[in-house]
């Protein structure tokens, strides 16, 4: 479980996050939704400590993450998987080496076990026979999937995904969404997903937090989000003709 308490963050005096407080529960797929530029990525980077929030606290299972030393953070980080919005694959390594990398760094597995694990993770994101290609040699959507495979290869207890299915076709997007939801339940991990895709929300959103201009505007389940009277949430949810038709 991750608890966020009054987190604020600004860049050069421009506030991007304003007093965000929420809880991301274990075994659930927690979604952060909001318009482009609303601060989802910044919030996620604050959660994992890539950005330091100006004020507020972040607690991992009641351990203060914000004030931890590098060594203490490392213990948590080895249990953490993250998918970056841009993939962030190591482009000097092959697909397989990318997926193995977290294991190579910290696990005591044999090489064979690591390769088995990599193949297993790659298979779960529907990738086969690409092990020895470099990131520059695969498509954008494939990169995203390799990045997901890398994020889950060390069996994390906390999984962060920044736009896991942007750039994927609807079919693959659903496969990825379901994969994230499945491993969340299967291994009882705390998952946080940034998205602006309403399909994902309806598919896997156990808990949905709506960020509006850097503020936590609304939170609830995917069923509640369809019925809420909150104007900004409605504007977001019913932005498309399809959703409006469905509502009527």
């Amino acid at each position, binding site marked *: 479980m991750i608890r966020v308490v009054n987190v604020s963050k600004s860049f050069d005096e421009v506030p991007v996050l304003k007093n965000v407080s929420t809880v991301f529960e274990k075994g659930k797929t927690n979604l952060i939704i909001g318009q482009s530029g609303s601060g989802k990525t910044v919030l996620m980077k604050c959660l994992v400590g890539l950005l330091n929030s100006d004020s507020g606290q972040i607690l991992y299972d009641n351990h203060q993450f914000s004030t931890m030393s590098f060594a203490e953070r490392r213990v948590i980080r080895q249990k*953490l998987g993250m998918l970056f919005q841009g993939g962030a694959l190591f482009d000097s390594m092959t697909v397989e080496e990318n997926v193995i990398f977290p294991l*190579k760094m910290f696990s005591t597995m044999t090489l064979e076990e690591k390769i088995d694990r990599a193949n297993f993770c790659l298979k779960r994101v529907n990738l086969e026979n690409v092990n020895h290609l470099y990131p520059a040699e695969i498509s954008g959507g494939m990169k995203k999937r390799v990045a997901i495979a890398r994020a889950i290869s060390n069996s994390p207890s906390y999984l962060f995904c920044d736009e896991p299915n942007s750039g994927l076709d609807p079919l693959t997007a659903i496969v990825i969404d379901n994969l994230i939801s499945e491993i969340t339940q299967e291994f009882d991990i705390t998952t946080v997903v940034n998205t602006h895709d309403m399909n994902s929300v309806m598919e896997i959103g156990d808990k949905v937090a709506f960020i509006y201009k850097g503020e936590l505007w609304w939170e609830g389940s995917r069923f509640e989000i369809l019925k809420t009277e909150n104007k900004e949430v409605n504007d977001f949810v019913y932005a498309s003709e399809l959703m409006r038709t469905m509502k009527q």
Partner: protein
Amino acid sequence: MKLFFHIGRYFMLLVQILKKPEKASIYRRQIILEMDNIGLQSLGIVAIISVFMGAVVTIQTAFNTDHPMLPRYAVGFATRQSIILEFAPTIISLILAGKVGSRIASEIGTMRVTEQIDALEIMGVNSSGFLILPKVVAAMIINPVLIVLSMFLGIFGGWVVSAVSDVMPVSNFIYGILYEFAPYDIFYALVKTVVFAFIITTISGYYGYFTKGGALEVGQSSTDAVVTSSIFIIIFNLILTQLLLA
């Protein structure tokens, strides 16, 4: 003020780099890889430049010391001294600052702007150590090898000139090359080389690591890395020469 900011951050980065590695075996493998990247791939340029510079130094010395008071073997002697003391360690290090420095800064800078460094951090890896330390160690091992090679090839270039042209007799040249040879000169040159290797890799690593922005800034970092490490090579050349030879 900006200078102090850079100096402070540079030394903080050094402390970070020199932390105990997570897994020694991975660092060892990286060092070998980097020795290939930094060292072997610079062999060609080092060889070409050394041979030609050695040849030119010989010709220049021969023409400018053409005086009855000076023995002809002085040309060989002067060629050897300038190659061993300055040309091989300093000029080749400057060339390497251009070749290796820009490569390191752009490689690490690209990793920064594409969030690959963040990805390392997230995994709990000491990213600065993992990326920079193997390069520093590799360069400090391989650059002296390149420099010794450059010394041989430089002198070889001079010998070729004296052998194929009538600038001066070969026998005089060889006599000069062997005349009052002091092994301490080699030691001095190699100490310089190792210090320069440290300067090139850490300064380029620094500029790459703290790149902010996108592709444009990666180019800027790479230029800054080359310029700054060249300047520090020149400054430290003066300091070390004063310390070791005076």
